[in-house]
């Protein structure tokens, strides 16, 4: 079945699929990933901090188990080997405006820079535009992560501005880059 028909496997790509895990398993994964403070500082605004698994599990139980219209969280799992390698989520979903934010992180270092993240991003854009029927997807990315900026541009995101001197890390300030993609742009990209 073609991928754009309602019956097709929506959450499956070429290298990965998007999946759900229990708060227990997810907290174990994330604790592992954030031991590497570089990972945290690539994906999060707040200060890097080695959270405990218990604290994370409780946080996830509170936020992930209930049916929430405003966010959708997935684990990124490899098709080959069923390995959980990262996380991707839609957040701040506003149906009235037709917009959502997306955030992604590849926590397992050996899977970075090899197209797994891009595959996951393509799946979630397909999900956002043809299942949630949103109109635009936004994201923010740190100036010091040019690899990510290029990957997002390849998916079709356009830079929409910069919040100047938004971060302070390692003794200097950095800009936060804002990007966005509209449904018609995504459709043209994937025609």
């Amino acid at each position: 079945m073609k991928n754009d028909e309602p019956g097709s496997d929506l959450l499956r790509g070429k290298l990965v699929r998007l999946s759900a895990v229990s708060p227990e398993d997810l907290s174990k994964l994330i604790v592992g990933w954030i031991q590497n403070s570089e990972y945290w500082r690539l994906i999060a605004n707040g200060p890097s901090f080695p959270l405990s698994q218990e604290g994370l599990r409780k946080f996830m139980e509170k936020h992930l188990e209930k049916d929430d219209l405003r966010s959708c969280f997935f684990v990124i799992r490899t098709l080959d080997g069923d390995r959980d390698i990262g996380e991707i989520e839609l957040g701040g979903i506003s149906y009235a405006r037709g917009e959502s934010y997306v955030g992604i992180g590849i926590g397992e270092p050996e899977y970075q820079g090899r197209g797994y993240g891009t595959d996951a991003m393509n799946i979630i854009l397909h999900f956002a535009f043809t299942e949630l029927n949103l109109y635009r997807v936004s994201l923010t990315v740190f100036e010091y992560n040019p690899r990510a900026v290029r990957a997002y541009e390849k998916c079709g995101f356009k830079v929409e501005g910069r919040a100047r001197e938004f971060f302070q890390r390692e003794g200097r300030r950095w800009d936060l880059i804002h990007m966005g993609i509209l449904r018609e742009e995504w459709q043209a990209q994937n025609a």
Partner: protein
Amino acid sequence: MTNPISTPLFDGKLVRLTPLDHEKDPEIVSGWTHNAEYVRMTSLEPVRPLTAAQVKKQFEQIDKEMDEGRRLFHYAIRPKENDRLIGEARIEWIEWSNGTAQLKIGLPDPGDRRKGIGSDVLRMLLRVSFRELNLHHLEVVLPEYNVPALRFFEKHGFKIEVRRRQAVNRGGRRWDLISMAILRPEWEALNEER
């Protein structure tokens, strides 16, 4: 040397920044939620009228968030000469390690606008943000159709940074969402000129 902390942070020329009154204010704020023009100018969420009881519950949430999270400061705007509630002001989404926050100012009654009250409130918010909270980057997010607000913040030194294309859908068409911001060194420079 004058006492450095003697500047009144919450007393302006025309108005004061004060706490919410959980007994008297919910009724008034409930009226604001029924003011579709005001809500559409200042909020991205759809208009959703609330009863006074529902507003009171929101106040409790605000207090809880301010007390526990310390990432939000919510003020009621009142004239200097009485306790009438005429508006709301917020410093929110504070990220302390980076020194960033979003500002929000609302004056629901058009009769209170264009009198210098907005400028009075903004001056106080900027002063608190830069001289007490020690923040670096202050942002406001506005729909492109709110031209008076865009001009107001530009007058006060904010610069346009981001344009989220067609992120608002209202009145039968789409509009861009604009972020404007001012940095601490810019504000310091503007203040020296005065």
